[in-house]
């Protein structure tokens, strides 16, 4: 949990709404978190929970015409919500950078890798092409691309998936940003290279000492590399705490569902997965009360607050875990008991 006074990134009560033909999409609805330099925040949640929308909001990449942004996003103390694009763009790529899910589509197919890196460097550094080229080759080398001089002149389609993502990482780090957002950086890659890319990101973070946001579906990944974990569902925060807190004593029924559906975290990898029944809600028409209630096994019986009141994100009270917050109407004691009796016994290894 970020305890320092001024974390590099501070997101407060962020709301993102899209105006579409079908109505207003409340993609992110009141999200608060922060990341310090040198720390990694893992954001987890199923598809459609608002992870990418949150990260694009930080980068200021939403179309301002169709998007309504509310709340505050402080990057090194500067609020980027409502910042004019010509100012915001100076932060993009220099103070904060982003790596996308699919490096094949994220890189321009018509330009060489080298040219794209050089361009990224020269946006923010007034240097000659030769100087930028030297820097680009250094970065390609640093991310583990063999023969960087030769690779510099090749096109994205001449790279393998893993090498492409390495090139993308090199490009995002070329200006030494203080904040790096990696949105599912391994989802599009072969299982065998996924771990290598995560290791690389981990190494680089240590070296560059930046604040990192790692977005993933995989709580297993988060438990290995993240310092903090933010569990998102339906555009809201379900649970937030240090990785240790969330893995040791998860408090939200949705987190339990995620844990139970992770093969890597269950004691017996052969055991049946327990996927969460049902689908994430439509954000056009968000269920009243707790967004998770239509799928929650523990939703209180009719008459309870689950389908009427939105649960607040509250600090745990009965155990001393500062910063561990949960948004659930279940009484805390009941949650802890339920977890210990029903969930951890299913075989979630810790």
């Amino acid at each position: 949990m970020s305890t320092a006074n001024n974390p590099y990134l501070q997101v407060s009560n962020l709301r993102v709404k899209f105006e579409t033909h079908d109505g207003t999409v409340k993609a992110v609805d009141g999200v608060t978190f922060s990341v310090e330099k040198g720390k990694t925040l893992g954001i987890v949640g199923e598809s459609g929970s608002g992870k990418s929308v949150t990260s694009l909001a930080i980068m200021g990449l939403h179309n301002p015409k169709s998007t309504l942004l509310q709340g505050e996003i402080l990057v090194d103390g500067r609020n980027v919500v409502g910042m004019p694009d010509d100012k915001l763009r100076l932060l993009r790529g220099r103070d904060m950078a982003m790596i996308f899910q699919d490096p094949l589509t994220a890189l321009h197919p018509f330009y060489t890798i080298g040219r794209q890196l050089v361009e990224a460097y020269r946006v923010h550094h007034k240097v000659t092409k030769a100087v930028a080229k030297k820097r680009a080759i250094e970065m390609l080398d640093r991310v583990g691309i063999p023969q960087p001089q030769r690779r510099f002149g090749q096109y994205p389609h001449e790279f393998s998936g893993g090498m492409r993502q390495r090139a993308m990482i090199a490009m995002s780090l070329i200006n030494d940003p203080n904040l790096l957002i990696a949105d599912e950086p391994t989802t599009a890659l072969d299982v065998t290279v996924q771990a290598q890319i995560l290791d690389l990101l981990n190494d680089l973070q240590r070296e560059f000492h930046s604040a990192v946001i790692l977005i993933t579906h995989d709580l297993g990944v988060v438990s290995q590399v993240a310092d903090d974990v933010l569990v998102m569902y339906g555009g809201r925060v379900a649970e937030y705490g240090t990785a240790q807190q969330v893995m040791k004593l998860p408090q939200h029924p949705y987190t339990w569902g995620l844990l139970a559906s992770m093969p890597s975290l269950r004691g017996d990898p052969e055991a049946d997965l327990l996927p969460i029944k049902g689908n994430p809600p439509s954000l056009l028409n968000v269920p009243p009360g707790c967004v998770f209630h239509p799928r929650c096994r523990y939703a209180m019986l009719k008459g309870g607050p689950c389908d009427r009141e939105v649960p607040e994100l509250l600090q745990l009270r009965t155990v001393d875990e500062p910063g561990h917050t949960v948004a659930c109407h279940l009484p805390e004691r009941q949650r802890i008991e339920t977890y210990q009796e029903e969930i951890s016994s299913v075989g979630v290894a810790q």
Partner: protein
Amino acid sequence: MFRFLIKRVLLGVSTLFAISVTVFALFFMGPADPAASMCGTKQCTPVQHERITTFLELDRPPHEQYASYMRGIFVGRTIGGDSPDAIECPAPCLGINFRTYEQVSTVIGRTMPITFSIVLGGAVLYVLIGTGLGMLSAIKRGSIFDRIASGTALTFASTQIFFIGSVLLLVFVYQTDLLPLPKYVPFTESPLGWLGGMIVPWIALGLINSAQYARLSRAQMIETLSEDFVRTARAKGLAIAPIYFRHALRAAVTPIVTIAGLDIGGQLGGVAITETTFSLNGMGRTAVRAIDEANLPVVMGIVLFSAMFLVLSTIIVDILYSVIDPRVKLGTSGGH
């Protein structure tokens, strides 16, 4: 590259060959009697009819006529056989105009510059203006400019060239004299005269085809602007201009190059309606007339040239495509 060219040229030649057989076959299947149409419908005596038929070798079986046509192309031939008026037609001989006895190669040599002037000048106009407007509409999507441009594009795209052409002629040429009457003056004779004579057809073609290119490029650009690599360009902190020009435009024009190439290639063989609207005797108008007259050699010559331009344009488009898009390798997939 070399292998690609060889392959495509061979393919092109066999296409032309197949087309020539088809045109010949269609001609002999129909009820056409060129000799009758040549000697005049009413007062054609059987003797005259007979003479023309022998002179043009129309009494010989179709496959022999075809063989002698092909021989003419490669080694030349004498038309009219032993007749004292026999015409010497050196290779590449495309036969003679049944009506005027003019060699078809001369006909093509005369009509081709007219069609080329109309088509190429018009294409420069409509490709540049249409694509430019479409791209601008896409960037300013939803704005008043976009709505006006898209509405206008839709109107012109659903209009016919003879309508626009007639209106232009009526309003700007006949009634007000603001624009010169369309006519063909060779560029080498008078560049200004050439320009003046072509301006009205170019405007007409420009209005109609810009509309199509505007719609097409607007759609392409909108699609490209939603591509991941454009988002990456923004995430790098690039300014608006390089995002649009270096990243989006380059990808959006690629399909337009293909379409424009094939479009122009197709039109170089003749734009009959445009030529007729403006009374310019290009290849298209000449071909249509020749069909009416059952003037086989003229039809055949123009059809073969049109097909050749189309074949050449597909080869050029494929080469251009591989230059623009580094993922495309010539010859591996025969293009794209």
